[in-house]
């Protein structure tokens, strides 16, 4: 396993996690895009060492890169592509409704949490 690749995956994950824990939906989206990259690179890294492009006849079989993780990665890219577009639409809808793109808290949860916080202050 290439340490560089593992580190790149780790770095992308870090920034991705930092972004998705933001209140801004746009950053949430950016974060998921980065996490998607991280996941795909991880799959690729799982295929072992770099090699020739996996096209039969280009090189001896042993020198080709492992095509299976690449196929996984491709499927993953496409799926996360679709979901990112959907998230984009969600964020846009949210912006339409509230005028900003901030993630809202769940009102009912907040109500219950606040109720008990108030009681906690008394005790």
């Amino acid at each position, binding site marked *: *396993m290439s340490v560089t690749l593992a580190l790149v995956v780790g770095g992308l994950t870090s920034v991705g996690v930092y972004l998705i824990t933001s209140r801004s939906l746009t950053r949430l989206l950016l974060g*998921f895009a980065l996490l998607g990259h991280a996941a795909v690179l991880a799959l690729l890294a799982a295929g072992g060492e770099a090699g020739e492009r996996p096209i039969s006849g280009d090189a001896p079989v042993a020198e080709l890169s492992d095509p299976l993780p690449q196929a996984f990665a491709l499927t993953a890219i496409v799926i996360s592509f679709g979901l990112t577009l959907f998230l984009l639409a969600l964020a846009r809808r949210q912006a339409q409704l509230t005028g900003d793109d901030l993630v809202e808290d769940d009102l009912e949860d907040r109500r219950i949490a606040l109720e008990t916080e108030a009681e906690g202050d008394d005790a």
Partner: protein
Amino acid sequence: MTALVGLLVVVPMLAAAVGFVAGERQWVRDILTVGSLAGATAIAGILLAHVESEGTVVLRVGDWDPELGIVLVVDLMAALVLLVAMATILVVQLFAIGQRRTAWGADPQLSGPLLLVLTSGVVLAFLTGDLFTLFVAFELILVSSYVLLTHQGRRGQIRSGMTYVAMNLFASTLFLVGLAIVYASTGTVNLALLAERIPELDDPLRWGIGLWFLVVFGTKAAIFPLFSWLPDSYPTAPTTITAVFAGLLTKVGVYVLIRFHVLTGMDDLGPLILTLAGLTMVIGVAGALAQDDVKRILSFHIISQIGYMLMGLGLFTLAGIAGAIVFLVHHIPVKTVLFLVGGLIEEREGTSALDKIGGLAQRQPLLAVLFALPALSLAGIPPFSGFVAKLALVDAGIEKVVVPIVVIALANSVLTLVSMVKIWTGVFWGSGDDESATPIRILRPGHRLMVGATAVALIASLAIAASFGPLWDLGERAAADLLDSRAYIEAVVS
């Protein structure tokens, strides 16, 4: 038999596609959805009968060697859960047709086909013998549920949908990383081969894989502390959608958790899983007690009940896993009925908030019965299915002498009952805010279908209680097959 398996996966997708383009022709969609779901239920029934007598059915998609291609495996556990799941979705779809075009229903143009996509995802998740296909199945389920949750574009739905999407998307990312880890260390994603190779790995690596997938599947299954998306998102969705989600989706998570962790021999994670099971039960029921809305109470109950199934898994004994499987089977229809009743209440009263409703037992005695029976089942009162399922699990716990989880499981029953009583006294007894002002809607023609569908689901759950003897035998055999991974490996590889 394998042709049937193929149909089961692809036909719902095809029907969904036709449904998307059917435009205003609602009858086309109705025929398609009901038809393909009824077909799926029938196929599931045939498969169960076949698997029960002839053993596991394996479909090699595209006729490829399992080392290279994808396999779909129908073993006893899959067939059992599949039948219940298909029948449940069918009933909910009938309910949805009855509920069409009300404030509480979903957009019929989308919801029918989306439900079918969801169905195909569920089928695939139950049947696949391949970890990457499982990922795809999850994505099918998730993307259709994202859209089902949010397609009306209401503010609350967008908010809760965002929570749902974000948490599950994160879990999907983790899933992919998990796949990378698994592939890197074993060179395959085929479950049967994994069942062979993972147990041979070094302990740390094996534990790491087990824990990682516990997080991934645990998020789908809504276990502690990864459940937060569930109670926020479920109550805002239209009834029919919540009913399917509640009955089914978390159970898919539990199902794969059981499948993966048992097949790959992760029994040393048992104590941890038991701890999580206890916490899941307690936190879930605490949430249910804290809520003041029918749908929210019911949502938290899902979490609490997931704890029981997790408990069965955590025991890693034959009785425990069999208990988890039968609990799963019992829980799907019960939960669905409860949510459908929640929908009926909302439909009749215009809200599901406890303090705004009252006295329904007098006005709607049938609804009271429809609620009371599954509620008692959920609380584990005999002779309903919930009692036997819980008894089986508690029995398994006592057998392995894990006292704390047994105590929690029993105490949890009382608390479950408290919250059910809360709904009962709030909704069916007492009086509403202002009785004269309570809107009693005019019965629409679809109402009868809605009540009928709910009743059918209830009868199904009662039938499960009545036939628990054979069910338990099946559950035990399914658990035995799972625990002895050699059978699974042999069926797939040879």
